[in-house]
């Protein structure tokens, strides 16, 4: 025991050991301070992404400061270190241009907030739910469960379509009908389908519009509004309803089988040849 005490006394007399202990104490204080700061930030009413970024910056700053003080205690000259760091920074800067650009783009994205975590966006043809907005990239999860990483610079430079930011969304169904159909009747049938679809909003009202005269068909469009979360379901329901209604009213869809219902023909001149073809 006395030998151990003598050894410890000899150790303590060495300046280097005392300096090392002081440096270790400074680093421990630095870690304690970062923990306290992080805990304090949790109570702030900030967006989760902003809080994460601020936490990382604060932790880095405190740890760098603690490291500098600890190195000073160990006798290292910070001036030399800073000079070396400056040269390294320039070299790294040239090599890490893209990363720095992504980092700065990420800061702009967090500030501007064109989208948030949990929203669904389309970037450059990729559509998915935003999983995270990180310092260098945005992570999306597509509808078929693929993870896509998009650099922040790409997001900032290109068009971002936010599919879930607004409460309502319009659903457009393009339909082609034969030239011999009465567009007025087609319009009535389509608007009636929309009227009876429960998920369609009453206002803005469903609308019918002409698109173009095609080669062998007329293209028209039915537009309805719904809650954004019902967009897909409304689209499917309308497609089913339109097909059913067209069959009921004898409206022909070009390319499909002729309707079985004996509805009055829009163009009487076309009726005899149609009947003749069916009998053949």
């Amino acid at each position, binding site marked *: 025991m006395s030998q151990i005490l003598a050894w410890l006394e000899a150790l303590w007399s060495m300046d280097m050991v005392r300096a090392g202990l002081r440096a270790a104490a400074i680093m421990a204080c630095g870690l304690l301070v970062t923990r306290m700061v992080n805990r304090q930030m949790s109570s702030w009413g900030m967006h989760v992404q902003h809080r994460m970024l601020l936490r990382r910056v604060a932790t880095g700053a405190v740890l760098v400061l603690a490291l500098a003080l600890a190195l000073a205690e160990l006798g290292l000259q910070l001036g030399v270190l800073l000079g070396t760091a400056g040269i390294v920074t320039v070299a790294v800067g040239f090599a890490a241009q893209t990363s720095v650009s992504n980092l700065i783009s990420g800061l702009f994205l967090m500030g501007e907030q064109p989208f948030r975590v949990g929203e669904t966006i389309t970037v450059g043809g990729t559509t998915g739910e935003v999983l995270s907005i990180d310092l260098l990239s945005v992570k999306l999860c597509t509808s078929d469960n693929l993870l896509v990483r998009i650099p922040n610079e790409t997001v900032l430079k290109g068009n971002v379509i936010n599919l879930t930011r607004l409460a*309502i969304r319009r659903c457009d169904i393009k339909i082609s009908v034969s030239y011999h159909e009465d567009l007025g009747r087609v319009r009535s049938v389509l608007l009636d389908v929309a009227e009876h679809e*429960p998920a369609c*909003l*009453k*206002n803005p009202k469903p609308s019918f519009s002409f698109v173009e005269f095609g080669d062998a068909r007329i293209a028209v469009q039915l537009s309805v509004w719904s809650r954004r979360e019902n967009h897909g379901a409304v689209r499917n329901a309308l497609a089913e309803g339109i097909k059913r209604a067209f069959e009921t009213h004898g409206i022909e869809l070009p390319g499909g089988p002729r309707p079985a219902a004996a509805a009055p023909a829009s163009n009487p001149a076309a009726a005899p040849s149609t009947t003749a073809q069916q009998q053949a």
Partner: protein
Amino acid sequence: MQQVDTSMSSEITQWWGTYEVELDSGGQWCIGPARLLVYRLAHEWRMVLEPGHDPGASGVAIELPAELPAQLDHLMAHAQVRCFGVSDDSTQLVLEPQLPDQPVVATPERKVEIPAQGELTVYVSSTLWLRVSVGRTPRKLLELPLQPMAETWFGRSTHEGELCYASRTPCRLHLDDLAVLPHRAITSVRVQNQSRLPLVISELKLPVPYLALYAASNGSLWTQDVVVEHEERELMPVQIRQSAPQHAEGATLVASARRQTLENLMMRAFGSLFSE
């Protein structure tokens, strides 16, 4: 056995309240067009609410206990039966009417113009919701509209506004034109045009979640009266009268407002603000 059928009566039977549904039995409530079926099993409640589509159905029919087993098996194959597991053996069932959880937008039969400095009272009818709770300390199990409710968007543009329910019936200028129905509540809205220009009302948004529900002595259901002051700005003050509705004789409070009434409720109430 309690059986009430008021389909031919001019007064509305109170269908809300506390009922006892014994174990392995059930009950049926027909409230206007809607039908509620409830079946009590050991540690389980089974319920079906069929919202009706006939807006004019006016009767209330209660059958308690009801011969349910055969009906319920048939219904379970085709309808959306809800099953709730409970740990107690309480047979207490509480039915409460509730106002919708979103504002209601009503349109007059034709556009109405209120002259400058004039005022007009209109009456709006809103579909009620049914809240079903069970247990000695009532716990909510179900809350659904008694009629399917269509939604509509009310706002200055498609990106600024809010989702509301569209009233099935137009707002009326005369109270007698509104049918008194067990599944609907009536609101009296006085519009005061305090601007220099006539006000044309093409649609009216009612802040229903801020209104309380009252029952008159004849069983009809009313909300608190509302006063809207139009002052040539987009948001206008809306006052909700804290007292019982003036048209509801012998009114008693049935359900409190879903949201706390704000002292200064400002909102956009009309779809069309001015006319030349």
